[in-house]
């Protein structure tokens, strides 16, 4: 009985936050002249219903990058590191994946693996640079990671607009990667791809590391109280490098999954316009940065977003209401002091 009860106790806060946001969103819709009941109804159908469970599959497909970016944020937050640079790390990962996939001759599984590896490295190193700046030069991570998003995005945009542009298509994008490098589809004709399983497996692996290993214990301890962890013999600098590299590498992995599994090329803005990184960050905040919680919260936010599309088709309410709801949920989460970054305060940041 006990584990069940603790699980419920952990859910109480997020549930209050979701309830508050749904109520605030309803008031907001009334204020802008919409019918909240019809809109929420259409949202639920839009997320889960549809012919042949089509909407549910769309939610699953959307959940892959959200859960992945949620995990990337959660890994850093859990140890008390404010990585707001998921967007830049994601973009550089996707870009590196596409470049390697295009540059290597042959194609096939090996190329796909090498492209993914390049994506992990690119995202990881970009995050590692921010960790180095904080640990070596005391540049606050919170601000440096955020600011580093812009050069990363602009650099990728420059490359696909100029040297790497697929001139024939007339669009700011790279050429299409070879068919053999693309991630396999799950089931014939569907849009679900292998990347969805890769992300799910990564979440399980991360949950194991956080809950069952020594590194995971150090992460949790540092996140709850950095000074206590230091006094207990945790090398916070080493932990910081490891955690930030892993966080960035996970973001890079999502970039590779999207490029190899969905777009089959790097398209300018395709990883930033859907706000994967920011949605993932909110997911991590909603679930208190617990890896398995990321899975649940990520699926939930994916459902809110696909639901938004359904709502827009069925009613007059713009689908951007989903974004308002998500932000409101996080605002209500923040009001409950024990949530936040890994549940603890970290000294010396900001």
């Amino acid at each position: 009985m006990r584990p069940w009860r603790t699980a419920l106790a952990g859910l109480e806060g997020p549930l209050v936050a979701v309830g508050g946001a749904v109520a605030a969103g309803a008031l907001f819709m009334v204020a802008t002249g919409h019918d909240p009941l019809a809109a929420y109804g259409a949202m639920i159908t839009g997320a889960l219903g549809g012919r042949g469970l089509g909407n549910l599959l769309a939610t699953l497909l959307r959940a892959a990058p959200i859960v992945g970016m949620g995990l990337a944020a959660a890994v850093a937050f859990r140890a008390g590191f404010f990585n707001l640079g998921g967007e830049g790390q994601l973009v550089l990962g996707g870009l590196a994946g596409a470049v390697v996939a295009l540059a290597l001759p042959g194609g096939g599984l090996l190329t796909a693996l090498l492209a993914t590896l390049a994506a992990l490295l690119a995202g990881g190193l970009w995050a590692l640079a921010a960790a180095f700046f904080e640990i070596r030069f005391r540049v606050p991570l919170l601000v440096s990671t955020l600011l580093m998003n812009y050069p990363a995005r602009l650099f990728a945009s420059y490359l696909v607009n100029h040297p790497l542009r697929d001139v024939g298509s007339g669009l700011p994008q790279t050429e299409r990667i070879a068919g053999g490098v693309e991630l396999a589809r799950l089931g014939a004709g569907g849009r679900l791809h292998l990347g969805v399983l890769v992300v799910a497996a990564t979440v399980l692996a991360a949950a194991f590391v956080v809950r069952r290993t020594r590194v995971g214990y150090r992460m949790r301890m540092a996140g709850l109280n950095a000074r206590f962890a230091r006094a207990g013999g945790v090398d916070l600098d080493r932990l910081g490098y490891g955690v930030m590299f892993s966080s960035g590498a996970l973001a890079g992995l999502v970039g590779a999954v999207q490029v190899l599994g969905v777009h089959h090329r790097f398209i300018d803005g395709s990883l930033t316009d859907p706000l994967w990184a920011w949605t993932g960050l909110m997911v991590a905040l909603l679930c208190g940065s617990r890896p398995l919680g990321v899975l649940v919260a990520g699926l939930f936010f994916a459902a809110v977003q696909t639901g938004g599309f359904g709502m827009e088709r069925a009613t007059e309410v713009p689908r951007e209401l989903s974004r308002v709801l998500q932000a409101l949920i996080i605002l209500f989460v923040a009001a409950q002091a024990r949530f936040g970054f890994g549940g603890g305060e970290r000294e010396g940041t900001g």
Partner: protein
Amino acid sequence: MDLLGLFDATLLGSLPRFATPILLAALGGLLCERAGVFNIGLEGLMLAGAFGAVVGSYFGGGALAGVGVAVLAGLALAALLALFAVTLRGNEIVIGIAINLLASGLTVYLLRSIFGVKGAFQDPAVVGLPIHRLPGVEALPFLGPLLSGHSSIVYLALAATAAIQLLLFRHVIGLRLRGVGEHAEAAMTLGVGVDRLRYGAILASGALCGLAGAQLSLGNVTLFVENMSAGRGWIAVVAVMFGRAHPLGVLGACLLFGFTESLGFRLQGLMLPSQLTESLPYMVTLASLFVFRARASRG
């Protein structure tokens, strides 16, 4: 390339325009910092102001109405921030992030609800801020383009810098505000209303960011673009750090960051790829953080 040739009237004239939004937001951030609140919601407050300005100008029939609605929008969002950060005592970093995302989502939602467009809204009915030409100064070399030919908000930002300098160091409210920031409990035992002062600082930052947004959407251009604040609120957060929460220091930092933005703008005119010139302000801001920490650890 002739480096000195870069310093022409275009560059000098664009400096105040680019520096002003960052300066106004940073002044708001400075007040919060002095009151012991780390406000990273400046970006969202500025975006709300930029959107409010266009709404006000479109429906209110003029730039003044635009500025009014911009300030109100900044205030409204700041009130929400203060409610959650001060009254409900939530984590200010999480709240700041939530406010930024809320502003981004709300402006896009309202852009579609009110104007029925996506991406950007531009209309002849949106009236921009009038430009003031200073007689006498206008004709001067260098100083002319630098000082003359700007909107009222540019001059207002300079006045606000001076006013905040006086408020902080020459007025009892400033003394109390600094006391709250340095040691809230000590200030409280002396009978200072800590929460009231923090509300005041956050609301002031909302109004200042509202003005900053109005300069963006009615001064620098006359349109609203989704997420047009483009990280300027974060640059303002760095300006507060770099200027060590001192009005004159912050002014200096904002002039530097504004200068890199106008330099990037100027270099774009020389056929350099826009993506490279646009990343210049972020790189310089990032670099300034190294100097900030080096100084902080020394003194």
